């Protein structure tokens, strides 16, 4: 449970220099997520064309883990279909909850969050961006 397992190079880098940060003016779908316990607050806006994510941005404020995770997520999902992304999200949840397994390929940079599984308190932070994205999918489904 060394801190180095948690605050990896990739995480610190994304935290200090987030990718796809901002708000899409006219998104296909969007959502906002809270992590009441620490005050993390994230907005995700997405553009989907023919079932494929063509653009995504996130904004908000929060800890290194929540912000870096959202940033890594945005990189990862552009160009993928909504269904693929849902599978990815499920994989990501499994990984940070420590179910074991090999996540190397599909999750890309997101494997940097493997260490979160040793810090159960931080699982909520790591998954906030992903959950918020899935909420956006759901609210779009309802329309």
């Amino acid at each position: 449970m060394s801190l180095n397992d948690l605050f990896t190079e990739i995480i610190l880098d994304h935290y200090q220099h987030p990718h796809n940060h901002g708000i899409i003016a006219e998104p296909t779908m969007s959502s906002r997520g809270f992590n009441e316990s620490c005050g993390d607050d994230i907005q995700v806006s997405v553009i989907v064309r023919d079932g494929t994510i063509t653009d995504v941005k996130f904004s908000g404020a929060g800890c290194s883990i929540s912000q870096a995770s959202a940033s890594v997520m945005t990189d990862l999902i552009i160009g993928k279909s909504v269904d693929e992304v849902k599978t990815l999200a499920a994989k990501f949840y499994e990984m940070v909850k420590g179910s074991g397994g090999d996540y190397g390929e599909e999750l890309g940079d997101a494997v940097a969050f493997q260490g979160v599984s040793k810090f159960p308190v931080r699982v909520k932070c790591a998954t906030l961006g992903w959950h918020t994205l899935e909420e956006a999918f759901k609210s779009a489904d309802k329309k």
Partner: protein
Amino acid sequence: MDHDLKHDFPIFFHWDSKGKPLIYLDSAATTQKPRQVIQAIDDYYSKYNANVHRGAYELSQVATDLYEDSRAAAARFINAPEPESIVFTRNATESLNLIAYAWGLNNLREGDEVILSEMEHHSNLVPWHIVARHTGAVLKFIKMGGDFQLDLGSLRKILSAKTKVVSVVHVSNVLGTINPVKEITRLAHEAGALAIIDGAQSVPHMPVDVRDIGCDFFAFSGHKMCGPTGIGVLYGRLELLDRMEPFLGGGEMINEVFPTTSNYAKPPYKFEAGTPNIAGAIGLKAAIEYLENIGLQNVMEHEIELGNYAAERLSAVEGIRIFRPKKTGTGVISFTVDNVHPHDISTILDSEGVAIRAGHHCAQPLMRTLQVQSTARASFYLYNDKQDVEVLAKALEKGVAIFKPRKKADVFK
């Protein structure tokens, strides 16, 4: 403190924080429990357990006496004039809701004004939002001025004949500021309004005298003062409690019940519907006796000393901003560190065995006033010492090092 009080608290010997001693600095959230309190609860269930005020057998009478002794102890602890003015609730939050619902719903009218402050805990905000929605009452706010103190000038400006309630926190759970509640009570009464004090963070840490303050209601929680979870107190002036409508309806709070009407028992029973947290009240009495033995004046001085020491020691940390009044600082110290999010600070400290709180501390409006999203907060109690502050400071410095702004290459070198 005379000797090392940690020895009274089993958790410091039983919790295994990765081989490191537990440095518990989150007592403003909840305190640890001395063995005297744990034992009192065990004794109650093992020797005296029965429902109260109901049985005509001796065991039930003993349980009732223990429960009522706890009420008397709570009254004595805050110098309430009589035990009957003490209502047992779940926590400070329920105490405040009780007033908002039982008094507020039945007495506030459209356009009436309720004055709160910018440093309230959500427990003294949200109940008033609910009541305002139901009644059309309007909420106004005392502003915070310099040195994290309430600006009484801003209170004077908004007080008027429309003011029906002034409800403020005694000691801020974020800043540690001790508010001038006696003066605020006086001003409220001059305007013909009720004065309500949220004492969740004062009663555990300093001598409190509700008669001296002169307030109409006063709320606090047992779990923040060495007592069990699930027990809180509402003190109310007896003639007010007597005139008030009840809050929860059920067993024990009535005289007579007909199919569609009922009439109510006297306070405090009128406000204690259903089987109370008997073991909780008995544990609270043990906590009160524990604190009285040490002396609240001693507790307060010890905490102020630690708070002052921590403020000085932490000010050496690079990029730190401390939110703590110079004038009335207590054992609560909130801070932020440039480039290190409070939540990350907490994780880093945790890896050294140090438990602090990170977040908005249920005081989001105050966070906005302070222009931060969240803070880290260390809060001291009677079992902490300067060594704890030392470990805290060292761990913080470690955090600063990890989060130093960098290019990719120089991480963890």
